[in-house]
């Protein structure tokens, strides 16, 4: 199933990879379509090209090929040595995820709600952090609603949506937004799958995300993270009807959560959201 996701659209990918990237100025960056690289730009003035690296969005850090390889390998090693280092996990995901992000972006474009998300680019951040989430309002929602479950999750672990790092190593701004959206959806995936943030919960969510997004960071994280489980967790993970089976089943059957417009559906009951996205109820093996 993973290989289906990764290789199914290889034909389209090959044509994309073969098309040359010409230097983009910030003025015409947003109007470029993927693949439309030979469009004639009458306003192009070579004297006005900016010197140095072209930053296509705030916090963008352009990397050249050698730097990308160096960071990918280095952050991969650092992720294994120190999995609590979120900046290394972010860096690993961003440097290795371009291909998968393209596929994901195309899937979003194919879906109506996903296209709306790509057009409006909503951010899951608190109002103080520049987004639209009002945590107090979410806490006041009825028990069993999506927003209330999310607020409870954040309160239980002391998290805030503002803790997410901003994407910086992805060159295309739209792909950078897709990566940023994926990162902000992660907590909501926890809520939808009913998993906590202990190792086992994280591995289950990583498997789910690996199937949904195909990001190498998720795939390697799911594989290698499961090696670090404690014995009791491993039993619950591997048993018949256990978490691994649940993760694999749900991951392959469910609709893409990145296409769900969470910001408009906080009031929906969680069970209905799960039904709509074809996510099974999580097994209770405690």
């Amino acid at each position, binding site marked *: 199933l993973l290989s289906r996701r990764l290789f199914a659209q290889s034909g389209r990918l090959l044509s994309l990879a073969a098309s040359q990237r010409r230097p983009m100025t910030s003025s015409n960056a947003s109007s470029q379509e993927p693949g439309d690289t030979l469009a004639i730009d009458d306003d192009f003035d070579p004297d006005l090209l900016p010197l140095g690296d072209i930053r296509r969005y705030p916090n963008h850090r352009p990397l050249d090929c050698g730097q990308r390889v*160096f960071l990918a390998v280095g952050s991969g090693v650092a992720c294994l040595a120190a999995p609590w280092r979120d900046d290394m996990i972010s860096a690993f995901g961003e440097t290795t995820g371009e291909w998968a992000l393209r596929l994901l972006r195309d899937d979003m474009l194919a879906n109506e709600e996903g296209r709306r998300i790509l057009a409006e680019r909503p*951010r899951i951040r608190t109002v103080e952090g520049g987004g639209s989430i009002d945590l107090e309002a979410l806490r006041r929602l009825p028990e069993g609603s999506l927003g209330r479950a999310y607020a409870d999750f954040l309160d239980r672990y002391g998290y805030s949506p503002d803790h997410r790092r*901003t994407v910086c190593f992805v060159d295309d701004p739209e792909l950078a937004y897709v990566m940023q959206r994926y990162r902000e959806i992660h907590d909501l995936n926890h809520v939808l799958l009913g998993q906590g943030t202990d190792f086992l919960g994280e591995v289950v969510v990583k498997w789910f995300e690996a199937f949904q997004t195909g990001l190498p960071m998720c795939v390697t994280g799911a594989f290698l993270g499961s090696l670090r489980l404690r014995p009791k967790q491993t039993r619950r993970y591997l048993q018949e009807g256990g978490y691994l089976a649940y993760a694999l089943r749900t991951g392959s059957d469910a609709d893409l959560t990145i296409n769900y417009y969470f910001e408009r559906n906080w009031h929906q009951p969680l069970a209905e959201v799960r039904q709509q996205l074809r996510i099974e109820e999580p097994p209770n093996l405690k």
Partner: protein
Amino acid sequence: FIPKMQCRQLLRCISRSPATSSSSCFGVARRQVHQPGGFDTSFGFEEVEPGQKQDRVNQVFNPVSNSYDVMNDLMSAGLHRCWKRRFVASANPRPGWRVVDVAGGTGDIALGLLEWSRKLPGRAPPPVRVAPGDGSVDSFREAAERQTAAAEAEAPASCTVSVVDPSPSMMQVGSAKASAKGSTFASSIQWLEGRAESLPLDEASSDLYTIAFGMRNCTDLPGVLREAHRVLKPYGRFACLEFCSVENPLLSILYDEYSFRVIPPMGLLVAGDWDSYEYLVESIRRFPHQTLFANMMREAGFSAVNYEVLWPGVCCIHSGYKLPSV
């Protein structure tokens, strides 16, 4: 051959930063504290205003202090130790000298200066004379301490170093290193918080002024040089180790590529901070040419100004003397 200690330190650095509160957090982990100069801007919204240059230096050095030494080793492939040893040798502190080491937070130079002055030939410790009859270990130890203290007071065995640094976290690392080396080292170093433009020291109080890899972080170079001239005694020596403009064109190309392409990602991997190391390599480029800096030293009042470029040509030692005012 890379020593095991350095590998262990490197692993400790990679696994240390940035700290999070939840202990078992795998996958997309959280962090509780926003690093300064980090990922604070909203995607697609307004950009963060760049901070003031003066505050930037402190902001740069406080978070990187723990991994500073490891990053120095990685960035220079261990060469910085050779440069610092050559610097200490050329500064040549004698026992009894009062040395001021500016921007010497982690104490590399201070400890090197102490070791150099202790190991100068002709400084054998005096033999300990104990009264006969009482052969216990405690009485011998007490007698030894008393006699060494007396010998120290009369003819000191090493110089004394006052380290001035604007970053307290760097000095914490340094004082930990000094205590690990022994009480004799720790007691000969004084850690003062302050900036190079206004040193917390009296006029004409030091025999030697050293600054290693700190001059590029100073905003007012003539001010720093005037202050150095002020605190030095007549015939006191000024020594500055700093990165310089590379003359060799091939080396210059390799050096630029390495500085701008390799060092910031390495900083992200080891110290968790890309911006600080990008700032460091940019501050090296902004530093004046070695001949221009030598002229600035002459304008500040130093005589017999000279500079010596160290192998492979990326850093040099500037030295000058303060002559007594006529």
